[in-house]
C-alpha cells in the first residue's frame, strides 16, 4: 500500500443520537414547540446531535428556519429522514444529509446482529422517554465474530450464541439455545442482572463487571443444561434454570 493511502482509514460507526419526530409542517408551531421543550428540559438536550424524522409529513416545513432555530437552541441537526419529495435545496445549504432511520420500533424485526467488526454494537431502538425500556430480541443465531449490545435494556436471543460471538446487555440476557460464546449482563453496573440460558456451555460470563472464564468445560452438572447465573457478592453463582 502506498504512503498516502495509510494516512486515513474509513471505518464504520454506529451513532447514538436524538430523533426529533415532526408532527406538523407548520414551521412556526414547530419552533414554538421546540423552544418550549428546550426550556422544560433545561440543558439536558443541549449539544446533542439530532436527526429529524419527517416520515409522517406530506408537506415540507421551512427547513432553513427550523434548522436555524435548532442551532440557536444548542442542538446539532445532522440529517433528515423524509419522503423524497420533501427534499429541497435548503437541506444542502443547511448542511443536512438525507438519512434512513429504521422503521418504527414495534414493527421492526430484531436489530440485525452486527456482522464483521467486533468493534461495532447493535443498537436497540431508542425508547420514548416515559415508557419502559424495551427488550432487544434477536431471532437468528449469533455466529462467531458477531456482537450485539442491548443498550439500556434486556436482551433475548432466540437461537444459539456461537463460540466467538458476544452478547452484552445493560439488563438481563436470555438465550433460548446453546450459549457457547460470551455473555455480559448488567454491562453498566446493574448487579441484579441475570443471565439465563437453556443450554449452558459458555466461554465467558460476566455480570456487572464480575466475570468468569470457562477455559475447558463448564461445570459438569450443568453442562448443556438450563442454567441461571446471578451475582452473589463478588462471585457468580450458577444454578439450574428450574428448581
Amino acid at each position: 500500500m502506498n504512503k498516502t493511502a495509510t494516512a486515513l482509514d474509513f471505518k464504520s460507526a454506529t451513532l447514538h443520537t436524538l430523533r426529533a419526530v415532526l408532527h406538523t409542517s407548520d414551521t412556526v408551531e414547530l419552533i414554538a414547540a421546540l423552544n418550549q421543550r428546550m426550556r422544560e428540559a433545561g440543558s439536558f438536550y443541549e449539544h446533542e446531535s439530532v436527526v429529524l424524522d419527517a416520515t409522517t409529513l406530506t408537506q415540507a416545513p421551512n427547513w432553513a428556519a427550523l434548522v436555524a432555530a435548532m442551532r440557536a437552541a444548542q442542538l446539532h441537526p445532522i440529517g433528515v429522514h423524509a419522503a423524497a419529495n420533501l427534499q429541497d435545496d435548503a437541506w444542502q445549504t443547511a448542511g443536512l444529509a438525507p438519512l434512513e432511520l429504521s422503521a418504527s420500533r414495534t414493527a421492526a424485526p430484531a436489530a440485525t446482529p452486527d456482522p464483521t467488526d467486533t468493534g461495532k454494537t447493535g443498537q436497540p431502538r431508542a425508547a420514548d422517554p416515559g415508557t419502559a425500556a424495551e427488550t432487544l430480541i434477536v431471532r437468528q443465531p449469533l455466529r462467531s465474530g458477531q456482537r450485539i449490545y442491548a443498550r439500556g435494556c434486556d436482551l433475548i436471543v432466540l437461537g444459539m450464541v456461537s463460540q466467538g460471538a458476544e452478547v452484552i446487555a445493560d439488563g438481563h440476557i436470555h438465550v433460548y439455545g446453546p450459549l457457547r460464546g460470551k455473555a455480559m449482563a448488567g454491562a453498566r453496573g446493574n448487579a441484579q442482572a441475570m443471565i439465563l440460558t437453556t443450554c449452558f456451555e459458555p466461554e465467558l460470563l460476566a455480570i456487572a463487571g464480575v466475570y468468569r472464564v470457562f477455559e475447558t468445560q463448564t461445570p459438569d452438572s450443568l453442562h448443556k443444561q438450563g442454567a441461571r447465573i446471578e451475582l452473589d457478592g463478588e462471585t457468580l453463582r450458577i444454578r439450574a434454570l428450574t428448581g
Partner: protein
Amino acid sequence: MSRIVVVTSGKGGVGKTTTSASFSAGLALRGHKTVVIDFDVGLRNLDLIMGCERRVVYDFVNVIQGDATLNQALIRDKQLDNLYILPASQTRDKDALTREGVEKVLEDLAAMDFEYIVCDSPAGIETGAIMAAYFADDALVVTNPEVSSVRDSDRILGILSAKSRRAERGEQPVQEHLLLTRYNPKRVSEGEMLSLRDIEDILRIRLIGVIPESESVLQASNQGIPAIHLKDSDVAQAYADVVARYLGEEKPLRFVDYEKPGLFKRLFGSK
C-alpha cells in the same frame, strides 16, 4: 429466473473450487444451463480445475471494466455444452470487483437465460468473498471436519445473515447448506476428526452432503476434470447426490460410516 449460488467457507483449502466445479457440472449434467464464476481475482484456479486454462483470453474483471463483452469472456466447458466458465483475472487487484460491476454482470447472465449462477468465493472475508456472497440466493458452506474450518464457516454464516443483499433488503434469508468435504469416516471413528453430528450441532444448518476424502480429487484436479466426472468414484457419486438434494430430491447419506475391512480385504490388501 436464475438462482445465484455462492460456494464459500472462510477458510482456504477446504474444497471450494473443487465443489464449485463439480456442483456446476452436476447442474449442467441435469440439463440446467449453468455458469460458474471465479471470484478469486489474483489467484485464479477454477480454470485449471475445469481444464480450460489455455482458453482464457478475457476475464471477469475485463467484463466489469468494459474491456470485453460477456460473450467474449465466457468459456464453454469442454464436456458439457450448457456449462460456461467466467474466469478470474490473474493480474488484477481484488479491488477491481465493484458491487455495481458484479451486479451488472449477474444481471446480464440472468438475461442470457442461465438458470444457475455459481459463484466460487475466495477464502477469507475480504472484498472478493463479500462480493461473491452479497448477491447470493443460496450458499453452499464448504467445511472440513476440523475445528478451525468449522469456526470460519460459522463466521461466514454470520456475514451471510447480516451482510448479504437479501439481509439488507429484509427479504427471505439466504438458503444455507452445509457441505462437509474431506470426510474420513475411519479417522472420525478414531476421534481424529470431528463427527458429522458434532459439526451439525455447532453450525445448525441443513446438511446437503458429505464428500469423502479421496485421492481421486487430486488426480481429477491435476487432469482438469471436475471430480463429478470420475466414473464410479465415491466422490463423484457424493457430488451427484449433493446436486440431486439441491434440486429437491431425497437421497440417503452415503460414505459416512466406517466399515472395518473384512478378512478377505485384509488378506488380499486392496486400497
